[in-house]
């Protein structure tokens, strides 16, 4: 394919929808809870991925600095109690778009777990979290970034909510309020 440009020589961002290179959730020992990598050219084997995650965790678990450039990726991250959430993009990508994906991931998981973002709870609801992953990013394309709509699409199991406690609508309502708060901060 000699006719195709080898790479965009300039420094502009590439006009593509394939923005997310990977997302993962690690526990506080750096072990993988869930991880998905979307770029067919980088980090294709489980071994490479785990090595990358180890490196990533070592570089990030102490300094809570939100964003790091590592191994040719821009990684944005956030942690809570014993969980670390990461979203990876190309080192040449709009950091704020990646940040919006991370927010979507964290917020929707947080709603799904009813604000108990902890390893034990996430493992109990792993199916829902897997569905959330699937709803946020499809093959590297951002599918949705609105936590409430992501949660509604992951089909929260209704009978899970014990009688006398809140309904789905209430959960969503409280989620909206929490969001509002986080925006006001």
């Amino acid at each position: 394919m000699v006719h195709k440009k080898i790479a965009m020589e300039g420094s502009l961002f590439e006009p593509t929808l394939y923005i997310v290179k990977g997302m993962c959730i690690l526990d506080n020992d750096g072990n993988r809870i869930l991880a998905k990598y979307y770029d067919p050219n980088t980090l294709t084997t489980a071994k490479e991925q785990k090595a990358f995650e180890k490196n990533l965790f070592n570089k990030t678990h102490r300094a809570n600095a939100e964003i790091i450039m590592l191994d040719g990726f821009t990684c944005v991250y956030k942690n809570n109690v014993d969980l670390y959430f990461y979203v990876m993009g190309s080192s040449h990508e709009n950091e704020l778009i990646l940040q919006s994906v991370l927010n979507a991931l964290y917020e929707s998981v947080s709603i799904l777990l009813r604000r108990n973002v902890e390893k034990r709870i996430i493992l109990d609801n792993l199916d829902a979290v897997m569905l959330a992953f699937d709803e946020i990013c499809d093959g590297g394309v951002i599918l949705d970034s609105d936590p409430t709509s992501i949660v509604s699409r992951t089909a929260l199991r209704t009978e899970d909510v014990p009688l006398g406690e809140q309904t789905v609508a209430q959960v969503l309502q409280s989620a909206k309020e929490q969001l509002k708060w986080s925006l006001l901060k």
Partner: protein
Amino acid sequence: MSSFKRDKKEEEDTGGNPYQNLDKTIILQEARYFNETPVNPRKCSHILSKILYLLNQGEKLTTQEATDAFFATTKLFQSKDVMLRRMVYLCIKELSKLAQDVIIVTSSLTKDMTGKEDLYRAAAIRALCSITDSTMLQAIERYMKQAIVDKNPAVSSAALVSALHLSSTAPDLVKRWANEAQEGINSDNAMVSYHALGLVAATRRNDKLSTVKLVTRLAKSPIKSPYALCLLIRLAAQLVEEDDSDASQPYIEFIECCLRHKSEMVIYEAAHAIVNLRKCARDLAPAVSVLQLFCGSSKASLRLAGARTLARLTAKHPAAVAACAVDLENLISDPNRSVATLAVTTLLATGAESSIDRLMKQISSFVSEISDEFKIVVVKAIRRLCTKFPRKHQSLAAFLAGMLRDEGGLEYKAAIADAIIALVEENPDAKETGLAHLCEFIEDCEHTTLAVRILHLLGREGPKSRQPSRYIRFIYNRVILESGPVRAAAVSAVAQFGAQRPELLPNIKVLLSRCELDDEDEVRDRAILYNAILETGDPQLINDYIINIQKPNPVLLERALRDHNEAQPEARFDIMAIPTEEEKQAKEDIVEVEVRKPVQASIEEIYSEQLAKIPGIEKLGPLFKTVPHIDLTEPETEYRVRLLKHIYARHLVLQFECINTLNDQILEQVHVRLEPPQDFEIRTIVPCQKLVYDKPDSVFIVLEYPSAYYDSLGTFGATLEFVVHDCDPNTGVPDSGEGYADSYPLEEFEMGCADQLRAKAGLDDWEQAWDRAERAPEATDTFVLPQNDINEAAKAVCEHLGLPKAAISGDAVKEIRGGGIFRGGAPVLVRARIASSSAGVTMKLAARSPREDLAQLLLAAVG
């Protein structure tokens, strides 16, 4: 609270983590449970998530295991439970990569995709598209079109994104959905609008004209989705970059307008685009002030985005960045070390000499905490400082040496070594200290490549220093202590001292004879060779084989040697015919985190593969040079043809790279009718048998040059001839029936002097070389040039001769000094003096070459 009770019970059972110690075989056994009726959704869902978890942890399933699990999973379609169904889709997507016969679920998924339950439909579309191939796609095309315009945003988005994935395998089919996708761009839902724009842009990627239309139209329409706007800005920026005329002005205006958007994402995107456009926008101030605001944000990613983008500006617009100095100062102790590093390096790049010491102190306080990528950024910043403020070299070199002693990977260490090497080369005052630091470093260097490079440098620079003998000790230590490659490099370095410092020669000879007993062949061979050459005392020989050695491009050398051995092993091999290693071009001087780039192969390397297809190509000898492509057609035509000229000693290979841009045609028996100038003889034509849509292929023509150099300039005419077969645009199957012959005129092209000459700018030793060639035939002439400005005139002459711009020197009188090797291996030197006079710009050109006709040719090329 029942859910917590359940948790507790599980905790007792499994120690907290239900997914710990999962065993593959047991879980695959559990999948049998799916066959039971009625299905227990909760239990099945749990088993599915265990399977997914295993796959996610990197567990490998065999094809048989995956297929079994896949078929078991399909049983769960009987359950109506929404959550379970969604988990089934996920499993299908994951297992479809491993299992066989996955298309069996197509009908179930098609049913879900067209069904009533919205929660199924979107996910079913995505699952379906991930398992279908292009043949099956036709069957679901109608549903896909409907889904794209569905009023449920989830469904519409799912269809659009799936279509985008499919467009890499079935581009033509997806192109037919463009109308539906177009509608989606105006959707009220932000994501639908984004995905629709992405799909439409992707289908038009190779069609600039319609991209222009798309962007022009959308720039005026009110797009709400921030993501879509970001994409649109990228498209617009790309158009500006590709178009040099004023037509791109509206796009720049559009991007500037986006600076006032309410979403930070869009503002940043716009600011980034403006700052990075090659063509300078009228005014950077709005973009810079936005970035300045970002630097003060409470969010680290915003600060990083701002600092990074400002850092990129340092080279082009230092004044604009200097205006943000206060904001950057606030960031130098940022808790995010990446931000702090960028701020400090940017300040170093734009600041005054007085602030250097303070900033360096700041950096050294946290340099151990940052990742290698950023350490390299720091190193590069220091390297630039060394050039900018030569007086500071002492403290900067000391800092670099300190970093060299710290832990770090090869890339990082290499960057530091590079910086010190640059310092040594540029600043004579810093030479001694710099070399001393490097000597110390190789005493304890674990990277062979780095040690070899430093030894080479010591060999080159050491002999010129005041006390060369002190380096010999360091170098000779390597001979005693290191591995083979390092020893060999050390021997070469030692020989350099012997060659350049006669007073050391006796000692060097002793050292070299000791190395003649080395275990390693390479070390021994080198020692013997150098000793023999030094023994002769012939200055020419010593210069050519020790001090200034020609370095041929290794890849091409290898290939040429192989061809030579196959074709004519008994003949002599001429190493001069191999293109020499090109000098690396100076990189743009910016503060930037290194982005991984593919290894750049030289143009000769890329094409030598393709040339191997020509029968008899090995008889032409080694490739002398490949001239970068020129277009022989307008960019937006039915058939695109580009020409590459491959030059051999006595032959010329023309490579016509053709692309058929019509998807309803297949071209067969494609060849080029050539009208060469007199005396060129066509030897071989390799036609292209079949040219299908969008797959480039080449026609080759081998010509022999006229025997006289003087006749080798001229103009070629060319016509593309072929037989057209119509075909189905989707499947590419040709229609029955005979094709018809057709032809297509191509633009004329020239064979010039620059094409046949491997030229380089005159270096330090040019003067000596010119004097040495005093007795060689010389041709001189005086010309009046059409240009009015001597700068332009000098550039034009360089272009004609194929010399780089670096060959030009002088102010009032421009002097061009250069030389090169002509095809066939004859060297040539040129000197041109250009001055402006009342009559216009005049030039006196002189060329010296052992072949007089060659010198004449150079004059003819300019005249």
